[in-house]
């Protein structure tokens, strides 16, 4: 029997192919590879398995994971548990989307192109910008590319970022910035409420500032209350204002387009994408309708057009002369394969949620997260939230005034089937014994109260 994926691997067909090619055996096809480097023996890999055996083997390995469906988890910090409607999974498994290539043939792949145009458009509505690209790899790489974009637009090379930023994002930003000779400089934030220190910002603004980046809500969950002032300061100095968002907050929180953002980045995972151990993310990258910005946009972007005959509306890639396959070393980025299927998922998700959905979702999350903070802070020595600012779905909890360390608390919670908040001990040591808790629409009252009961036992018991 042949391997099911190799239909021509029979003696008869191999002979037929060899005969047409005009050679005696397959080795002749590899005769131009120097014999000194040809593999002399088979690769040392596990023997091939049947489908049933593969299923058993892979399931056997993956069963060693405990999912956050079985555990009650309060982890967020860049990847968050949100419900993925069944319709989203259904559309994403349509073979025409799943198994197609990038739609460089617009006549044959109109469906992918229109879905991507709609993704771009829906993102623009949510963040209140005019333009969005088809996706970047994730929030971190969107931020990194946005920083390089500000430098190309302004011809300057300093990029300011807040002190309390995700370690994933700052590390990625620095990897991308260094070879472009962009200097990444931190702006102080208040230890009390986490807000941007405006005096420090003003001091660090210079004629070299390409852009200033803030996150709203911040990595630590609180909402920025001085974003419009930051915007004014940045623009007065001739820099660009880049804002990072959690799209799930934008049904209730002010969108960055309303407080002066030039470029918006963010993580689209919560928009209908599974957490998948932090894989298959979706980098949002959006900007204002300004030809100087658009010309410097990285990645693919779909435009509305018509057929050449002019009789029908249609879609195809626009402005490809920015991209690597045409502009090569002068391209705005090297990105080609991006996260299209995740973007299609996001388009379906945003369509399902619709005009009212994001507001209801945002309000429900706000209530649940505030309820959590409220009942946690009733435990002796627990401070929640520890930053004195408004917050959305995440907030920091400080345990300094308990006798327990975050590690000890999290270990004991885990033994009780609960995954506590992400420890901030090594990332921001100045915050002491703190962790970042995340509450979404998936946390029931029982989940939240179980957390409180167990925490109380651990801390007071």
């Amino acid at each position: 029997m042949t391997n099911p994926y190799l239909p021509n691997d029979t003696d008869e067909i191999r002979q037929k192919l060899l005969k047409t090619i005009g050679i005696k055996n397959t080795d002749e096809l590899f005769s131009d590879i120097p014999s000194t480097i040809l593999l002399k023996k088979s690769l040392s890999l596990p023997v091939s398995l049947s489908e049933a055996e593969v299923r058993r083997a892979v399931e056997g390995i993956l069963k060693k994971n405990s999912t956050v469906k079985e555990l009650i988890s309060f982890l967020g910090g860049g990847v968050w548990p949100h419900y993925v409607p069944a319709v989203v999974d259904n559309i994403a498994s349509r073979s025409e989307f799943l198994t197609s290539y990038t739609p460089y043939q617009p006549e044959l792949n109109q469906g992918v192109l229109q879905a991507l145009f709609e993704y771009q458009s829906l993102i623009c509505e949510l963040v209140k910008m005019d333009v969005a690209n088809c996706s970047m790899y994730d929030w971190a790489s969107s931020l990194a590319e946005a920083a390089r974009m500000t430098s190309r637009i302004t011809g300057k090379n300093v990029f300011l970022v807040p002190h309390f930023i995700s370690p994933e994002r700052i590390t990625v930003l620095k990897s991308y910035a260094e070879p472009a000779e962009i200097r990444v400089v931190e702006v102080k934030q208040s230890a009390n409420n986490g807000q941007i220190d405006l005096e420090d910002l003003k001091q660090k603004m210079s004629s070299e500032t390409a852009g200033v980046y803030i996150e709203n809500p911040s990595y630590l969950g609180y909402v920025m209350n001085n974003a419009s002032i930051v915007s004014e300061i940045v623009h007065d100095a001739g820099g660009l204002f880049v804002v990072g968002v959690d799209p799930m907050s934008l049904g209730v929180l002010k969108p960055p387009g309303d407080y002066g953002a030039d470029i918006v980045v963010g993580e689209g995972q919560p928009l209908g994408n599974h957490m998948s151990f932090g894989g298959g993310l979706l980098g949002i990258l959006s900007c204002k309708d300004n030809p100087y910005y658009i010309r410097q946009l990285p990645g693919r972007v779909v435009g509305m057009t018509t057929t050449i005959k002019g009789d029908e509306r249609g879609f195809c890639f626009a402005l490809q002369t920015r991209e690597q396959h045409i502009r090569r070393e002068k391209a705005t980025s090297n990105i080609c394969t991006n996260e299209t299927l995740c973007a299609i998922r996001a388009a379906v998700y945003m369509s399902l949620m619709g005009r009212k959905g994001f507001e209801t979702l945002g309000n429900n999350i706000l209530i649940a997260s505030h309820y959590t903070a409220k009942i946690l802070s009733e435990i002796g020595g627990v401070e929640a939230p520890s930053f004195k600012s408004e917050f959305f779905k995440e907030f920091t909890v400080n345990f300094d005034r308990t006798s327990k360390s975050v590690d000890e608390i999290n270990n004991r919670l885990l033994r009780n089937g609960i995954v506590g908040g992400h420890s901030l001990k090594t990332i921001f040591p100045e915050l002491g014994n703190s962790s970042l808790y995340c509450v979404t629409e998936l946390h029931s009252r029982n989940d939240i109260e179980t957390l409180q009961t167990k925490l109380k036992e651990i801390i007071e018991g």
Partner: protein
Amino acid sequence: MKEFRQAKWHMPTIFEIGAGDRSGCELPKLDSVLRQAIGDPSTFLPKDLMRTSPPNLPETSEVEVLRHFTKLSQMAFGVDEGFYPLGSCTMKYNPKINEALANLDEVNWIHPYQDESTVQGALELMYKLSCWLIEITGMHSFSLQPSAGAHGEFAGTLIMRAYHKHNSHLESKDEVLIPDLAHGTNPASAAMAGFKVIIIPSGIDGCIDIEALKNIVSKRTAGLMLTNPNTLGIFEKEIVEISKILHEEGALLYYDGANFNGIMGKVRPGDMGFDIVHLNLHKTFSTPHGGGGPGSGPVGVVEELDKFLPIPLIQYDGEKYYLDYNRTYSIGKIRGFYGNFDILVRAFSYILTMGAEGLENAAEIAVLNANYLSKRLANIKGFELPYDNERPRKHECVISCSKMKRETGVQAKNVAKRLIDFGIHPPTMYFPLIIDEALMIEPTETETIEELEGLVDMFAEISKEAYSTPNVLLEAPHNSSFSQMDEVKASHPRTLCLSWRMHQRMKHEKKD
């Protein structure tokens, strides 16, 4: 000739359907105790932090949304719908067992910051996959972090940069050499990593011109990026010599794994002398392209470069798997977390299915199929196989329509578009750049001989049409959802429309 008909829907955009107050999903009900305890957010959130009007999103029911996107999918075309001989993209079959496994709860519902003890399965899978990739390529270690081939190239060129910086000669080593045949991502990645790009010409045999290379290599050379087999489908037979020339100058050799499918199990980049390798799991290891991603582009290195790999690396201490962040010389990170995990699960499942023999057979059959096509297509009037047509190709071949264009006016693009009418996804067009009127054809190993013969018949039919009724070709495709798109209009500053918002504004401005 079998004709193809793609579904044709006159589709409004999602913004043009629905009706006020409709919704496509029901959110979990909020417990009344919570609401009573906290109150409405408008009572405690300052007004100036809040959104003043709801976003202009659709108001559509679940059924409307489902049908909308289902119909859009019917106007798309994947490997499951038909033959996709798209050169350099390795559009092989995407096995369904891999999909089933990648959609398990144990994949979808794990969080990257979970305690390592609760994600041992994920870490074990990633660790074993990287061990297999090490064996398959002959490298020392692998990072699974990059999300795509170009992303792997970026990681690789950053490693090149870190290596030269570490040896204190980045100042003097600032050039990366790239053959004129290379994928566009190579020069773009090298430039992103801060290098100057120097182009090396190909010789008349379609391989790197060794004399030209010797003249170009200098103290300034930081590295060479090479695809082998190259984009003509030809194996760079002087690879050992090339490696020697580069290494003698202290430069590194980078392997672009886009074409690895043609040599898998036959020869390894590590044995050819490459220092850095990326593989495209969405090409060689059968994971789906998803209309343009997510992909996965793991990057592997020789021992000397191990310390520069992105953090974290997955390690095994004999008892448990863990994430190793303690790597002083690492280039850092190029994306959040650890890689496109769901794609890694698929590739893992594929390698388990194939085993060593299966992978080698896959490469053999892919090469047999490509050579069968190159032989037969080059014999059809109007088509030629430029560059050493006696040499075997590997995974793909590049056919030129230059003669046909001269004699009939029919171009590569027209041939490509006409294939659509027969239910075939067009080959890669106008690439590599050194071939006039190029069609780059990669059949892969998963197509039947009947499918290959069908393609040959279609080329023969198209040739007949070109020399008798060329108009039918110039206006192709006829059977897809849409006829040719106006790509100029899509990019023209006056008609540029990149979102529904821009469309609404343009409509409004027109009225004024």
